[in-house]
């Protein structure tokens, strides 16, 4: 047997096994280190704080859990959120994230490591990313071998598609959910492979943890039944499938109903009906198989199959009928908008208004996955070539997740693990082929690949340089000894079949260098994307000075701390819902609406108050006991995510509830443009949001023309006047502006007349005075 390079053959198998496991442990440790380290850019560059909007609520809830215990947290009613209504927190959240941090907090304190709860929250996601790498390793190991598993772990450790949701400080549900997703899938594959109820129960337990952690558990609830159904349709039903699926479903469903937010949904909603249907189908099939084992008549068996199919159809019809009758709730809007992609925009503007719910563009696939994005299809094709039960799972997962990631930016996250797994399979097959030292021989012999795999994962650069002399080109045996030409052709064709493989060292080196180069570029790309795009806390804004030094704009916290320190504890702050969690978390004041958008009408009320004139808005503000109105204005420094740019969504959401009071076309110029300058429509100029945003703005420019840096338009010099509100605070760069709602006039006048009086404008006495007062 010819080899391209020789490998030592006198090593004992025990040594080889020990070395392999040592290398594996070192590799996994290094991967964990890389996964954690690459998520710390934001902590090192800025500081250890919670980043986005949602995590602020999770953090606040975790603080309650850490300081007051689990039972208080479970029954926590938060009177400060959704101000007049309040929020039952225990029944409206997935408590898995907070419970995890609470357990870690208590364990660390029991070990006398008094770590602040904030640091646990900040560093939870990096910690769990290491666990994700490990579970991806276990999952891929089931599909191929350990070397593919290590590659997959390395990929998912640093891939930006996953880092974007799990940088340090991003204390969101996804931080632990991806680990749970991969581990549940691993348990499922394992249960299916060996037909063990133990792994089925383990899958159910991790499914329960996943349900407690993330609303995306519906993905698992539908993936596993889909996989089982595909296996049944492919004629691969086995008792192992029955054992694995039944134990998972029976325990998993009952356990998922323990989470208060989920409640009876697993038996009442359409999202969970696939799992129930496949469960019923499996029972029928298993029963039929059992009966069949006791029967011999061919005719009777056919009848049995017909009855199984009939009952399957009947069951499907029953589920559909129950849905039509209303016993089973139809798809919720959030899920439905994944199928009908135009649905949200027309019917539920609040779903469409979130930027993460937009379709994904091609560049973001490349940005988030780099070279994995084209290794991914190759890996899926390789799954087709083997097509064991678990490969069917990966294929279905790949197809489903690709579709969802194409529909919604946010679901890129569920695609990333399968991309890493499939790419690792493809890449490791490539390495297997080109590192394997055996060369095909001219003479037919069965090529034992005994010691090939040992070196596959452990970097064989030393072995490569060992013996290039053995590399030999093989000549074709052209001398067929007489006989018929047909047989010669056949033998030649046969030899062509067996003599497939890689010859020589040069070809190996070229391909391997190429592959290693791709890996290096992958690492560079991941690091670059992570450091530039995904590691900026949205709480502080960073900009570069001309000399390259960093200038930090910290207006948000400035304003929130002003609210915290200079206003009464119970003063209600109204803002658009984006900032609800941050106000509650940083300013610690009651808010009207927040990021948990469960009450659309309440949000529309705020939208109406923001988008109507002062006279209309004032009674709304007074009825809701609003003391302060907080808006974000980026016109001075060019911060584009401000409230004027979000204003049209406020209008649309308000229009959905009060179509005859708020109309979107009124906010456009006659030509249909959205402008804020002189040409702006009268409704726009009179709206509360416009007036608050540009209040005293032209004064800032002295005699010059005032320019809005975001819109790039000139603001009318006259400026706006506010009669019902007082400016209470404006941050350094004018990003956050806080206005105080005036109390009613002591003399009972209309506030507009009162402020006109103070400015010295005399009312003409031609008409009898109209005593008008805003109705409260």
């Amino acid at each position, binding site marked *: 047997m010819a080899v391209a390079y020789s490998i030592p053959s006198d090593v004992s198998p025990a040594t080889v096994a020990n070395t392999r496991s040592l290398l594996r442990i070192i590799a996994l440790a290094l991967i964990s280190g890389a996964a954690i380290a690459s998520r710390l850019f934001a902590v090192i560059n800025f500081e250890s704080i919670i980043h986005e909007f949602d995590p602020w609520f999770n953090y606040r809830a975790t603080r309650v859990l850490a300081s007051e215990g689990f039972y208080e947290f479970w029954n926590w009613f938060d009177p400060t959120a959704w101000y007049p209504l309040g929020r039952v927190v225990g029944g409206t959240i997935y408590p898995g994230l907070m419970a995890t941090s609470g357990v870690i907090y208590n364990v660390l304190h029991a070990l006398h490591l008094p770590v602040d709860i904030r640091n646990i929250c900040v560093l939870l996601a990096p910690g769990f990313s290491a666990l994700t790498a490990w579970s991806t390793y276990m999952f891929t190991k089931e599909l191929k071998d350990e070397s593919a598993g290590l590659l997959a772990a390395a990929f998912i450790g640093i891939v930006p598609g996953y880092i974007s949701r799990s940088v340090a400080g991003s204390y969101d549900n996804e931080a632990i959910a991806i680990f749970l997703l991969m581990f549940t899938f691993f348990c499922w594959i394992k249960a299916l492979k060996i037909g063990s109820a133990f792994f089925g*129960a383990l899958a159910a337990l991790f499914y329960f943890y996943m349900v407690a952690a993330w609303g995306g558990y519906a993905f698992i609830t539908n993936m596993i039944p889909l996989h089982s159904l595909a296996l049944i349709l492919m004629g691969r039903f086995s008792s192992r499938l029955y054992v694995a699926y039944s134990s998972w479903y*029976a325990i998993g469903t009952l356990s998922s109903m*323990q989470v208060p937010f989920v409640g009876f949904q697993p038996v009442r909603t359409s999202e969970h009906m696939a799992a129930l249907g496949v469960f019923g189908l499996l029972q029928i099939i298993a*029963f039929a198989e059992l*009966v069949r084992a006791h*029967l011999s008549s061919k005719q009777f068996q056919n009848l049995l199959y017909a009855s199984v199919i009939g009952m399957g159809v009947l069951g499907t019809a029953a589920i559909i009928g129950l849905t039509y009758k209303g016993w089973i709730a139809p798809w919720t809007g959030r899920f439905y908008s994944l199928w009908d992609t135009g649905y949200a925009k027309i019917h539920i503007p609040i779903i469409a208004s979130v930027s993460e719910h937009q379709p994904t563009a091609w560049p973001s696939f490349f940005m988030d996955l780099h070279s994995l994005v084209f290794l991914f299809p190759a890996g899926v094709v390789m799954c087709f070539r083997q097509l064991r039960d678990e490969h069917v799972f990966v294929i279905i997962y790949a197809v489903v997740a690709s579709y969802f990631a194409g529909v919604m930016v946010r679901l890129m996250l569920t695609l990333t693990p399968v991309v890493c797994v499939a790419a690792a399979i493809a890449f490791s097959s490539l390495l297997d082929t080109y590192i394997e030292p055996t060369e095909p021989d001219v003479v037919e012999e069965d090529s034992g690949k005994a010691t090939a795999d040992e070196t596959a994962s452990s970097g064989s650069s030393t072995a490569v340089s060992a013996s290039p002399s053995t590399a030999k080109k093989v000549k074709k045996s052209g001398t067929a000894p007489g006989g018929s030409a047909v047989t010669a052709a056949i033998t030649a064709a046969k030899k062509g079949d067996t003599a497939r493989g890689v010859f020589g060292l040069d070809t190996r080196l070229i391909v391997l260098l190429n592959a290693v180069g791709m890996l290096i570029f992958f690492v560079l790309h991941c690091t670059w994307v992570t450091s530039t795009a995904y590691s900026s806390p949205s709480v502080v804004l960073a900009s570069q000075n001309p000399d390259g030094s960093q200038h930090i704009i910290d207006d948000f916290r400035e304003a929130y701390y002003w609210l915290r320190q200079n206003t009464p504890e119970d003063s209600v702050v109204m803002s658009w819902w984006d900032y609800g969690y941050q106000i509650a978390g940083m300013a610690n004041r009651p808010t009207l609406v927040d990021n948990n958008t469960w009450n659309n009408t309440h949000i529309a009320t705020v939208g109406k108050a923001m988008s109507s004139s002062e006279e209309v808005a004032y009674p709304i503000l007074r009825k809701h006991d609003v003391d302060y109105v907080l808006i974000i204005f980026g016109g001075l420094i060019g911060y584009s995510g401000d409230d004027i740019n979000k204003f049209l969504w406020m209008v649309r959401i308000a229009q959905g509830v009060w179509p005859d009071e708020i109309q979107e076309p009124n906010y456009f110029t006659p030509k249909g443009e959205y402008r804020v300058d002189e040409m702006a429509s009268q409704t726009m100029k009179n709206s509360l949001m416009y007036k608050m945003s540009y209040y005293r703005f032209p004064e800032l420019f002295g005699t010059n023309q005032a320019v809005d840096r975001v819109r790039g338009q000139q603001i009318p010099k006259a400026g706006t006047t506010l009669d019902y509100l007082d400016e209470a605070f404006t941050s350094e760069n004018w990003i956050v502006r806080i206005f105080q709602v005036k109390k009613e006039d002591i003399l009972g006048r209309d506030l507009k007349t009162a402020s006109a009086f103070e400015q010295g404008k005399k009312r003409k006495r031609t008409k009898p005075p109209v005593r008008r007062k805003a109705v409260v």
Partner: protein
Amino acid sequence: MVGPKSAASSASSSSSANALQTLWKAYNDTTSPRLKFIDAFLVFLMLSGVVQFVYCSLVTNFPFNAFLAGFGSCVGQFVLTASLRSQVNPQNRSEFKDVSPERAFADFALGSIVLHFFVYNFLG
């Protein structure tokens, strides 16, 4: 997976009486006493589930969580036992190479304990 006298097979067989008799005979002849014991438990679980379901649909489903817990425990225990049955069935030896009958029983016990933990937690 349950005893062969369920409604499904009788409805599907045209020459019912004769075929059922053959089936019953074949079952009695080929099944070991252990499996018959498991089957008896399965029949009991099924009857218990049916009674609960009939009660729920005829009388009330008011504490819905209690109904779900009780019914779920029947269904869950049923499928776990059925899993045990197929794992210890000598005819399935080729499918379950990694699961010995003792291991299967340990799995069954663990699964049942976990299931009933959730059942009691959900009874409310």
